[in-house]
């Protein structure tokens, strides 16, 4: 089982990339679980054709412990096991603590033992703003952290902060930094700036994605690119990226 936590600035395309990666792994025959770690609970929407799902925290709130593992999981495109941690209403409660509670509950209900996924991907909210959002990289959860960034300054700044958080946790047995994924926004010196960042954080750019209108078109259709435009170059880019992720995680592609 490989376990990956994907971080990056809000709006950088984490959920889109993660969902397409999940679909690519699933196409290849792997059992994949995608866990959205964001109170907005929209990580898996394109795998579920726009259908909303009951979040783990909503189940805990409404039913305490009186629910099953199956209640927390919805099967999406290509059999991807979709989970949304959920969280409080905007401006209320504590979203970070919510992530901890949701992931604890998922583990307690035996999600990893019962489904035995080959690939687990945690799609984590924007930035590591508090301890709760580092939960997916804690011991027992993800093994590798991947950071998605473009060449935009704010995205690079956020990526550097995340890399710093991973570095700060190195003596705690947390996940290690697997690398950066460049999601191109076609800004000036984009490759160069992301490469500089990679060197600054002692990491590498493990893959890149071109900017494509097909990504937005697929999103409008509430589908992944791999489903909506299976034969497109963009779909191939996601498949290739999945193979690169597999390689750095030691999964035979």
């Amino acid at each position, binding site marked *: 089982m490989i376990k990956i936590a994907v971080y990056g600035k809000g709006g950088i395309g984490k959920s889109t990339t993660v969902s397409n990666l999940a679909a690519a792994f699933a196409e290849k025959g792997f059992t994949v679980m995608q866990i959205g770690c964001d109170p907005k609970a929209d990580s898996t929407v394109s795998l579920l054709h726009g259908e909303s799902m009951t979040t783990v925290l909503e189940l805990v709130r409404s039913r305490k412990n009186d629910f099953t593992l199956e209640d927390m999981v919805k099967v999406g495109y290509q059999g991807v096991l979709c989970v949304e941690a959920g969280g409080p209403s905007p401006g209320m409660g504590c979203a*970070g603590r919510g992530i901890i509670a949701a992931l604890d509950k998922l583990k307690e209900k035996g999600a990893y033992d019962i489904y035995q996924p080959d690939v687990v991907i945690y799609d984590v909210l924007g930035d590591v703003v508090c301890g709760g959002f580092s939960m997916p990289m804690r011991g027992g959860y993800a093994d590798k952290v991947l950071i998605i960034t473009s060449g935009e300054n704010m995205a690079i700044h956020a990526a550097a902060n995340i890399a710093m958080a991973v570095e700060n946790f190195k003596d705690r047995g947390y996940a290690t930094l697997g690398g950066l994924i460049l999601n191109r926004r076609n800004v000036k010196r984009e490759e160069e700036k992301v490469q500089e960042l990679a060197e600054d954080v002692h990491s590498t750019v493990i893959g890149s994605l071109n900017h494509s209108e097909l990504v937005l078109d697929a999103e409008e259709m509430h589908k992944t690119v791999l489903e909506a435009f299976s034969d497109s170059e963009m779909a191939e880019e996601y498949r290739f990226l999945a193979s690169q992720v597999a390689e750095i995680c030691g999964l035979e592609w």
Partner: protein
Amino acid sequence: MRQVARRISTYTADVSGVCSALYELGGMVVMHDPSGCNSTYNTHDEPRWYAMDSLIFISGLAEIDAIMGNDDKLIDDVVTAAKQLSPQFVALARTPIPMLNGTDFDAIASVIERKAGIPVFYFPTNGTHSYVYGVGMALEKIADYYTGDGCEEQSDCDADGIRVNLLGVTPLDFSVTGTVESMKELLKEEGFALVSCMAMGSSLEEISQAGWADVNLVVSSVGLPAARLLQKKFGTPYVVGTPVGRFVNQIATDLRTAADTGKSIISCNARPDSVDSKIALIGESVLSGSMAAAISQVHGKAVKVICPLEAEEGLFVPGDVRASEEEELEKILKDMSVIIADPMYRPICPEDAAFYELPHEAFSGRIYRRKIPDFVKILQ
């Protein structure tokens, strides 16, 4: 009003349970809390506080450190203290604030262990469970960590008679009024050899020999997790019951049978059903069940055990009740004619019922300590 104790006390919480279980073992126990858990423990839950030294610490978690996630302060303080004081181990007990914060104690424990070079145990207490949970997991951890595959020096473990560990011994159930010494003396008189007592009066070295016992005696439900662990690790059977008064004969017989057959025995439910009984005994499951058995032997009456603490179904007989809420308890007690309980239960007992005081350190602390009996010597 549910889940509120308006007129009665509440039981010692899990954090103090961890401290109590580890008090005599030479470790350093750190409650990660602003301060409060410490005074509750040393003022109300720990009768050995002024008579015996132990390394019990509060971290002094400050608001700003909680907000800023400054775990390094805890780590540095513990490592510094551990290097100065050279404890056998460090135990970290969680309290409500780090529980709400989601502090990653597993990671903190591994960092401290690496820096201090001694074992570090983390106990996920949160102040909402009773001492039964806290003591239970602390003794289980100690039994697991310090017992190997058996002692290398066979001669150390050789002893005349059946070898026994006493499991689940803390002042929270037995206070410091003679019961613990009497239990040990009794085992000796009955021809048993005591390997270790978890955890009063035994060193870690003695506890490390626990795997050599032929049978374990679980005298409080807090000892059950350790008993199960030792059974899994060494195949040692266990007997669940407290040697109370005349009931000691049953305990002695069951210990011999369990050692002989290798099968565990729940002794504290060897007593009449209590469905129609109007005699109530409130308290911890194993001690209360054993006392109910002793009363039944001496007076020929069935006793209804009312257990307000965490307990397993198998420890009870039909008619016993598990209830923890004040309203629920009051409702049950109104039909009773005789009640044996800690004096702090009196406000919810019917006035026309005969009330016999049986103080419990984990419920009323030191207030009635001088009235806590030596359980071995009563009900003869």
